[in-house]
């Protein structure tokens, strides 16, 4: 393993750059897809598909974007963490807000014996943070602060907005591919798609291959972006607290979590996801890797 110390400033910058690189890849795939399909289908018809796909994707995501915080809170059945009942939780968040210059988010507690937490909201003014009561009971003050610093970092880095943007692009690609494949199928059934020449047949095959592969590839890229953002949030948490100790302790305790039952839609939001699948198919990097990285800071 590389033994050089990681500076959190460099880490944040590096991870941000790779997130943008990944977004660039998604855009490039979108353009390639659009271009190839445009060739196969002929301009006018395709233009219509593109607009249609874009509208559906944006409408789908905008709703989620504005309601993200409420939806997440409602779906896990969380209750507000009052200043009297959860004094330490409130105090820690207030301190971290002073360290990060963020407004204080709305705080919630959800009933679960596992240690976990999530943040949501489209911008810092509409942000919520929710922790499980397991986290409040099992974590020390410093560990809880580390967890909260990680969640506040998601808010400070506009991760919800960033991931929403990614979701729009990925959704657009999926919808465009679907429409393309279906229209091909439909036109071959009705016999309207008479092939013009051999070149066109090759393009058609490329188009179909792209339409099938593109959604899979960009979904993987989307997951890679999500994992990058987790690393950024870990680094930013260290920036706020000036020590990785608390977060490392919390992540070590989380390693002993057994899987939680939450709906699939909100699970990527959480601090840590119980892992069974391969890293490539995960929204979060493995805990061991995150801990190793934090220990080098």
């Amino acid at each position, binding site marked *: 393993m590389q033994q050089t110390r990681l500076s959190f400033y460099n880490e944040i910058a590096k991870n941000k750059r790779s997130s943008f690189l990944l977004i660039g890849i998604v855009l490039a795939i979108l353009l390639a897809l659009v271009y190839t399909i445009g060739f196969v289908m002929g301009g006018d018809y395709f233009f219509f598909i593109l607009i249609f796909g874009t509208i559906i994707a944006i409408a789908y995501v905008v709703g989620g974007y504005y309601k993200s915080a409420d939806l997440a809170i409602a779906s896990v059945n969380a209750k507000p963490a009052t200043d009297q009942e959860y004094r330490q939780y409130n105090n820690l968040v207030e301190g971290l807000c*002073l360290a990060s210059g963020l407004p204080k988010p709305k705080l919630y507690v959800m009933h679960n014996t596992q240690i976990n937490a999530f943040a949501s909201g489209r911008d810092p003014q509409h942000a919520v943070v929710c922790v499980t009561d397991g986290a409040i009971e099992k974590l020390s003050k410093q560990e809880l602060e580390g967890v909260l610093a990680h969640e506040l970092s998601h808010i400070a880095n506009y991760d919800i907005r960033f991931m929403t943007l990614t979701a729009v692009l990925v959704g657009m690609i999926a919808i465009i591919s679907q429409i393309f494949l279906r229209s091909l199928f439909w036109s071959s059934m009705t016999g309207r798609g008479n092939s013009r020449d051999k070149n066109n047949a090759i393009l058609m095959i490329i188009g179909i291959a792209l339409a099938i592969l593109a959604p899979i590839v960009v979904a993987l890229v989307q997951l890679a972006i999500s994992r990058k953002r987790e690393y950024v949030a870990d680094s930013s948490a260290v920036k706020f607290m000036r020590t990785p100790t608390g977060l490392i302790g919390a992540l070590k305790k989380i390693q002993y979590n057994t899987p939680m039952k939450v709906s699939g839609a909100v699970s990527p939001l959480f601090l840590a996801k119980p892992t069974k699948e391969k890293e490539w198919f995960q929204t979060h990097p493995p805990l061991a890797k995150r801990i190793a990285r934090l220990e080098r800071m």
Partner: protein
Amino acid sequence: MVATLIWVIITAVVVLALIFFIYYNRFVRLSHQIDNSLAQISVQLKKRSDLIPNLLSAVKGYMKHERAAIKEVTDARKALVSANGIEKQMKAGNKLQSALKSIFAIAEGYPDLKANTNFLQLQQELSAIEDKVAYARQYYNDGIMSYNVMTNVIPGMWFAKMYGFNKREYLKIAEAEKAVPKIEF
């Protein structure tokens, strides 16, 4: 030909004006952030001094023979309340903090007091305020760092000179506090 030239000139002027605006706004935004974080420090210090009377009344019943320690806290609080200017406030705040530390150390010897929920709450609250002061100070110094970096790099340096934004000072911990405390037995 002349028309193109005019367009080129117009675009250049607009871009240049934009750059000037953007830099000006950056300096102003950072200055506001720095001023605001200073205000946050005073807010926390004020909260700390507001809690002192409650703490003292909770403690008085138990610590009848610790007049010196209590007096130290009362004096430090007075100094904090009357201090003006952030440097003086910080200094007084630090003094109060160390006076409180000795109160809490003495409290260790009073089991009844340690079991008093009111006292425990105040203790927790005061330690939370201590953390908040440290965080606010950290944010202030972060702001100063970004600001000073911007006034030192090119082209920020030129704009800083032009707009008259000067380098600003970090909040220093008072000299006395940095010295290692003497331990006497």
